[in-house]
């Protein structure tokens, strides 16, 4: 089992708040791993440190054995990490296809090209990616008028543009109907299997998590309190306390980032 992502003692403090505190875990090749936890547990903060949107206060992140701690997102992306965000940030002034084409243009290092028309570059590749996520029929619509669930699928297509070895997906199914969630998670599982890539995702829908994740990690108040298979996590006393002890099972609400 090759380790793709290795996280050691990762911490982020905002003033006095320990949003993430000494988190250590691995993600193996071909693994579909979930990071769960209540609202404000530090999941998004963790993702932001993995891909360089935030600089860690302490700790180390390595990708395929190389230290990538504190590198800017674009460098980490070039090393084969794709990501989707809890709140989508697609290019509103472009069409669906152009959004994917931009990522492909960047992947092929054509950003500074000043001869070709951008909307003609890598269009077929973009359509193929959109086909995977089931968005090909909407390829020429303006991104600004998409439904939220479609934006999430578009983000996934974008994240696949550079053939990532690792995908980070922050609440990929937020804002979707239950059926749609299930379909997207199934799609993600297929991608993991077909391309032999690794996916780390956060998710508030426990049905989805327990149905698809190979391994589950639980984060609570910045601390990792469990890391194991579905059965292990389910039977973990501390996890039960966090999720059940308070009386509420789980907030399905989509909280803000």
């Amino acid at each position: 089992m090759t380790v793709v992502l290795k996280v050691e003692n990762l911490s982020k403090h905002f003033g006095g708040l320990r949003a993430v505190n000494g988190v250590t875990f691995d993600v193996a090749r071909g693994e579909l791993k979930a990071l769960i936890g209540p609202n404000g547990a530090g999941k998004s903060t963790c993702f932001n440190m993995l891909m360089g949107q935030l600089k860690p206060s302490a700790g180390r992140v390595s990708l395929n054995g190389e230290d990538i701690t504190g590198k800017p997102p674009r460098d980490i992306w070039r090393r084969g990490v794709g990501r989707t965000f809890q709140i989508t940030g697609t290019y509103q002034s472009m069409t669906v296809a152009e959004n994917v084409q931009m990522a492909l243009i960047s992947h092929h290092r054509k950003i500074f090209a000043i001869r070709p028309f951008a909307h003609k570059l890598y269009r077929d590749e973009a359509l193929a990616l959109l086909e995977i996520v089931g968005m090909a029929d909407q390829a020429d619509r303006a991104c600004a008028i998409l439904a939220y669930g479609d934006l999430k699928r578009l983000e996934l297509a974008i994240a696949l543009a550079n053939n990532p070895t690792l995908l980070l997906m922050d609440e990929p199914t937020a804002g979707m109907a239950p059926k749609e969630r299930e379909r997207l998670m199934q799609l993600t599982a297929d991608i993991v299997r077909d391309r032999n890539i690794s996916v780390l995702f956060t998710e508030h829908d426990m049905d989805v998590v327990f149905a698809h994740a190979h391994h589950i990690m639980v984060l609570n108040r910045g601390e990792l309190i469990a890391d194991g298979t579905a059965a292990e996590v389910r039977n973990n006393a501390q996890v039960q306390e966090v999720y059940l002890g308070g009386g509420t099972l789980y907030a399905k609400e989509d909280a803000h980032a």
Partner: protein
Amino acid sequence: MGLFAAQLITGLANAAALFLVASGLSLIFGVTRIVNFAHGSLYMLGAYFGVTLMQMLPGGFGFWGSVLLSGLIVGLIGVVIEICVLRPVYRAPELFQLVATFGVILVIQDLTLMIWGADDQIGPRAPGLKSVVRILGEPIPQYDLALIAITPFILLALWWLITKTRIGILVRAATQDRTMVGALGVNQSWLFTGVFFLGSALAGLGGAIQLPKGGADLLMDLNIISAVFVVVVIGGMGSIPGAFVASVLISVLNVFGVAYLPQSTLVLMYVVMAVVLLIRPYGLLGREEKGGEHGQVGEPDRPIRPAGLVGRSLVAALMVALALIPVFGSNFTQVLLTDIIIFCLFAASLQFMLSTGGLVSFGHAAYFGGGAYAAALLVTHAGTPMELAFLFAPFAAGLLAIIFGWFCIRLSGVYFAMLTLAFSQLVWSAAFQWYDVTGGDDGLVNIWPSEWLSGTTTYYYFTLIVGVGGIILLRHLTHTPLGYALRAGRDSDRQAEATGINVKLVQWTGFAVAGALAGLAGGLFVFSKGSIFPNELEIAKSFDALIVVFLGGVKTLSGGVVGAAFMDGVRDWLTRLEYWRLILGLLIIAVVIIAPNGIVGSLRKGAERLGFYRGEFSE
């Protein structure tokens, strides 16, 4: 030693008015996030009202009463401006607000002219403080000492207001987090109005209090505004102690500059600012500011496509028509069209960085004038042939844009705008004060094209080819990966960075391209006029370009060109009217509030509604 002390005292005294105006601007910005370009106009109004009131109210009591009353009146005028002009645009993008306040400048200029006339007003001297005292043998006006004594009290009063009173707590809360004000159960719009009153009143006080030293004239609005911006940027936007420190620094620096480096007083100020920003990008006491959240305010831009067959045919037809002008049109028409084409290219270059890149530059004139001056300097001092000098214009302007861009790109939003403005002022002051090289106010003359291009018609064709070529080049770039990358960085910086795009580098490149093409327009300009003067580098020139882009439609590709053509077309007619500034100012404000899509955007909307044109959004 005595002279040194005297200069220091003069500098400190000058700081008083500057601090009053700057603290008002800073306060307004901190709470409302609006950069009030009309702040200098409020200062000017304070001075005029002060003069009038002092003539009516005699004695020491009358003098100081007039100062306070002027502040009060100007504060109320600020309230009117806030309610009528700014309230409708709080939610609009920054650019809209800035353009609106620029409209206010024009309106106030003409209203002042109407009421008080064109003559400069001499400020009355303060009763009881008319004489001088000797300090270390140097004569120091008593009034200067009074100002130095007053300023710290104003600072203290403001500090007390902001830290110790309930209003101050609200103001601070709003400065830090605007959504919090609502949570505190306060009507946000009245808080904004209140802050506008206070900020405007401070500007009015500043105008009135400096009367014994400077009087009142119609140029003082724009004269002070760039110094105020420098102060606010150096001190940190939104920081009142910062405004104080920077006011003192700049005023003292100016006095010593006049004494020891008379050729470079203006430049000095901007150099200091650049140095401060290099070390502390958010000013001495400013806090780091997150640029706008990713995504744009308001309706998003639409997806773009290169012009189709119909579009291209229309452009081709227009080109043929323009090419036939010399056959039918008069000499005058050709000269006018030459001007228009040059202005269109200048506006198009701004639109490239502004609309496509989301980089709102307030100092684009630096590259237009910079290119023009570069060519003119080569001709004047090196006797370079016209062809070479002409090619040097875009090259030099591009180089300038690369250098200035490096500083500016590190900031975003209003900070970016302020810094571009400051750099353009730097170039302007160099042209204005470096008499031996640039000819100062007299400009550089006798910069004519070579023999083969010297006829009006020939030069018209030359301009047509180069100008339209430049516009088409910009338009093409918009559709290339570089243009798309600019749009990507503008739409979502985070997403672009997370997919391998170095957004700052892309923006820097866009900045340089826009600069080079503005320089190209400058090159065309200087050889068409045969001369160049510093006014081509003024703030007003930068604003001209901003306004036409805005008038044409920010969220369109052709807005700049259409707006420029429209503006230059009507300008000739408009400027014959006595109060054309008033009309233009009101027009600008009306466009901002009523038709924010501009000419092209509104036409497109209208065509969509009538069904001539099916937009992406019409489904």
